[in-house]
């Protein structure tokens, strides 16, 4: 492009801009309308629809003015264009007429009606009548899976959907087959689409060929109310528009934000709303009396709760613990910790899938990615440690892919499972989880050698006779050479028993190679909850309470406390060790469950059930992995008797007669945290802790160990109940156990057979699949799916019977 300034003229208006840009971009910038179908600012230029034709002043005297496509005409100094001249209009009309020849004009029964680019442009640029009397072509619809409905006769072959797959999603699934009149858009052999961003083609499709399957025929677009909101399922906080009708959520669309999701949205954020009216929604408060569940009103539920807890907590020896979802809002978290602390205790935690808390005092104020999402494209080397970035944080996966494509960023991965990223990985270390620390130590050793530095105290003994492998060496060199290198600790890493060592080593690698390091975490608001003080060792805005550290999530779930408050979680799915969680909770005399949903399992361990709002029904704030505070309001009112959790907690605070609980709005709650908070600059590297390596690094015992992660559509209660997402290809993993051929032979397991997997006192049934990317001695079983609710923690031994 270059920065050369040029001046052009459009419809007589002089515009100064950079040379080489396409005319359509400039027209868009200054607001001169140019009709288009195939052009999209985030996709490459295809110039195949010809709708954007405009007249251009001939370059030479005596030549006739040509009509040119605005989307594919790079501008140069002195060029003159006319978008509304008779010639331009004739060209546009002509193209419009051709495009409509085969279009069914079934707008009255088309979901795109009212938000259709073809409809709009036909009104603006077409004729009011048709002179075409021949037969129109008909194209068979395609089955693209549970999310995207097709009416392929409507397709105008702009190829936006095809280019999206190739350029953005990174999975080339849709294609254009045939030629001329026989052209069709389809997937190969009509496979369902597997991309985690697939539904963006619904927004991209300028006509009604690709529309939302779950939304199909349920409303007209012009009837819908739009409410701005924030997506609640990953630490990006994608901006969304929630569309409602008669107090029901009908659809969720991306809201453009260049710093975060651009114009895109993950399928998870788009379709999680489908859980809003799931049959498992909890409708009213309920109390268990003499083993029987009774519905009751809020007043009864809350006064009973307060009476029982008051008796318990009056005796200072008694303990209460609170566990909350990492997707709870800032306000909910703040009020909940205030209640727990008001009772003189500090047992509160949202890190419910973490195993190793030994170095929690070294945690940053909140888990930060360490680089702004819109700066990812400037990184030149990235090392992912235990991250399935595309499925866990689709938008960040997309950003990283763009970095690879546009900036030639080198991505390396260290993990216990090989993920099929949509970008090339230059070096890949896939090992038994207990060897991850060793691998990182190897990379650290390579860096020490490169820098002629001696090993920090404590590490010397560990790495002295370690051989540096080729891959470790290459990774070290790439990080060392990077001007802007970055290490990312992903969702899986927190569940490992030697997380503290791993993080320490990663931080050492970052320091030695002068790279930065950052965290990606589960849930929408881990950052906000850390700031709100939902940690046993820290109060609001990170104030340490060293003398009086409370119990962390693992401690709360391994020894039974006298009472629990569970906010927004299903411990049988959302904690590291479901078996233990259920046993512990069942043994407790008082379990208060605040949740939008209810299940039979919940009813076993709970004593009081309080129905709360989903994020679509409450106001609140999420703080994303870049420390952006994003507040939102409820799009619809709460389901049946459900109430926003912050309101319930506020009332509870009042009933317990705790100080400072007179908030009138969630904004006031937020204000009381914000007023104490000062944003700080982040360096996630931590100071070397020599004692951490006294016992050397973990060693593998050769018994088969269960490895795990949480599939993208299993991460929280809402997503798990969005049926269309559950039907997608990604969830086929939910009942599988994966191992490599070598281990399958040892265990005598055969592909497609059903096996019983046992872990301590629980078991589950799974279908065997052989997968050579699983490391030796490892058995992959997903977490947070129905089949694993009786199992214990991953990363420990399991036994298998065919």
């Amino acid at each position: 492009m270059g920065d050369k300034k040029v001046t052009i003229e459009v419809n007589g208006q002089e515009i100064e801009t950079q040379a080489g840009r396409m005319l359509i971009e400039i027209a868009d910038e200054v607001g001169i309308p140019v009709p288009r179908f195939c052009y999209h600012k985030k996709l490459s230029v295809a110039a195949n629809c010809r709708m954007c034709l405009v007249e251009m002043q001939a370059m030479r005297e005596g030549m006739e003015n040509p009509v040119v496509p605005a989307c594919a005409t790079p501008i140069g100094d002195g060029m003159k264009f006319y978008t509304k001249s008779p010639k331009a209009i004739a060209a546009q009309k002509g193209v419009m007429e051709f495009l409509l020849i085969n279009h069914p004009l079934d707008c009255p029964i088309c979901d795109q009606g009212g938000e259709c680019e073809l409809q709009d442009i036909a009104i603006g640029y077409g004729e009011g009548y048709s002179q075409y009397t021949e037969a129109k072509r008909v194209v068979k619809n395609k089955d693209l899976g549970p999310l995207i409905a097709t009416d392929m006769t409507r397709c105008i072959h702009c190829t936006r959907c095809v280019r999206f797959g190739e350029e953005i999603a990174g999975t080339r699934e849709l294609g254009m087959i045939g030629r001329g009149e026989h052209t069709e858009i389809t997937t190969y052999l009509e496979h369902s689409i597997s991309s985690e961003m697939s539904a963006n083609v619904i927004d991209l499709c300028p006509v009604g060929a690709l529309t939302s399957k779950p939304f199909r025929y349920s409303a007209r677009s012009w009837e819908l109310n739009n409410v701005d909101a924030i997506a609640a399922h990953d630490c990006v906080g994608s901006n969304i528009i929630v569309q409602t009708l008669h107090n029901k959520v009908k659809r969720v669309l991306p809201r453009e934000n260049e710093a975060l999701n651009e114009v895109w949205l993950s399928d998870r954020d788009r379709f999680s709303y489908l859980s809003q009216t799931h049959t498992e929604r909890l409708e009213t408060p309920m109390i268990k009396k003499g083993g029987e569940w009774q519905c009751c009103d809020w007043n009864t539920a809350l006064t009973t709760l307060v009476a029982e807890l008051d008796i318990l907590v009056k005796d200072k020896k008694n303990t209460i613990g609170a566990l909350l979802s990492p997707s709870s809002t800032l306000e909910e978290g703040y009020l909940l910790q205030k209640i727990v602390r008001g009772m003189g205790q500090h047992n509160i935690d949202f890190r419910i899938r973490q195993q190793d808390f030994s170095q929690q005092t070294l945690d940053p104020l909140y888990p930060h990615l360490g680089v702004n999402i819109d700066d990812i494209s400037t990184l030149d080397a990235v090392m992912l440690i235990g991250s399935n970035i595309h499925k866990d944080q689709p938008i960040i996966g997309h950003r990283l892919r763009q970095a690879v494509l546009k900036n030639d960023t080198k991505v390396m991965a260290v993990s216990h499972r090989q993920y099929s990223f949509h970008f090339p990985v230059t070096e890949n270390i896939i090992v038994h989880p207990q060897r991850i620390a060793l691998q990182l130590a190897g990379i650290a050793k390579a860096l020490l050698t490169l820098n002629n530095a001696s090993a920090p105290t404590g590490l010397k003994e560990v790495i002295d006779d370690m051989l540096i492998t080729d891959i470790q060496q290459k990774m070290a060199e790439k990080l060392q050479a990077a001007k802007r290198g970055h290490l990312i600790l992903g969702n899986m890493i927190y569940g490992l028993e030697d997380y503290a060592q791993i993080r320490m080593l990663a931080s050492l690698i970052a320091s030695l190679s002068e790279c930065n390091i950052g965290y990606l975490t589960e849930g929408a608001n881990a950052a906000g909850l850390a700031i709100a003080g939902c940690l046993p060792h820290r109060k609001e805005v990170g104030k340490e309470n060293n003398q009086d550290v409370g119990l962390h999530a693992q401690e709360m779930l391994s020894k039974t406390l006298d009472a629990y408050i569970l906010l927004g979680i299903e411990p049988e799915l959302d904690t590291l060790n479901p078996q233990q969680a259920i046993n512990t909770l069942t043994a407790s005399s008082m379990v208060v469950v605040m949740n939008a949903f209810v299940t039979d399992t919940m009813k076993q361990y709970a004593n009081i059930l309080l129905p709360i709002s989903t994020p679509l029904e409450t106001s609140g704030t999420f703080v994303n992995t870049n420390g952006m505070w994003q507040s939102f309001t409820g799009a619809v009112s709460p389901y049946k008797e459900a109430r926003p959790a912050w309101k319930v907690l506020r009332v509870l605070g009042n009933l317990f007669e705790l100080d400072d609980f007179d908030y009138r709005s969630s904004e006031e709650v937020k204000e009381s945290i914000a007023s104490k908070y000062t944003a700080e600059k982040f360096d996630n590297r931590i100071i070397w802790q020599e004692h951490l390596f006294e016992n050397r690094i973990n060693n593998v015992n050769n018994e088969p160990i269960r490895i795990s992660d949480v599939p993208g559509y299993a991460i929280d209660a809402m997503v798990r109940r969005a049926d269309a997402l559950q039907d997608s290809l990604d969830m086929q993993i939910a009942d599988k156990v994966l191992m490599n051929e070598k281990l399958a032979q040892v265990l005598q397991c055969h592909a497609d057979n059903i096996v019983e997997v046992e872990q301590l006192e629980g078991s589950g049934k799974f279908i065997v699949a052989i997968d050579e990317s699983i490391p030796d001695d490892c058995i992959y079983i997903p977490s947070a799916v129905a089949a694993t609710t009786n199992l214990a923690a991953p990363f420990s031994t399991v036994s298998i019977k065919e």
Partner: protein
Amino acid sequence: MSTQSTDLSEGKSDVLSEQTYAEIDQWLKKYPPEQKKSAVMAALRIAQDENKGYLTTDIISAIAKYLAIPAIEVQEVATFYSMYEHNPVGKHKICVCTNISCMLNGSEHILDYIYERLGIKPGETTKDGKFTLKEVECLGACVGAPMLQVGKEYHEYLTPEKVDALLSRLD
């Protein structure tokens, strides 16, 4: 799970013969190793020849796998060019151009005449498996319109007599 449409695993499968792979390899040598997909058209042609003149989805998948590109990309190419067949064809494939120049010069009559002689319409094959009739786009021989192609030969300035002569020569 290995059958996902985006499966980009590389390698051979037993759908194609070693001979076919060897011929494809000859073409692969002409392109840089990261540009394997450049050989897609040659690979399709070679595989089609091996399979009695037509392609199957198994073949398309096998080529995609060998060239490490998404199968849909191979299918796009295979359906775009009319030289690739997706159904069994007769021994002789008669490709009649019906594009503009040929149309103006009476290609429709040629098609009608072939129907009269062989009883097949475009896309059909004679019962004895000898002839398949196809309608194709411009073959770049407008100067000799109307024209048709059989095998590697062009036949131009067609008349019913010329068609008769041609048909009697093909056995």
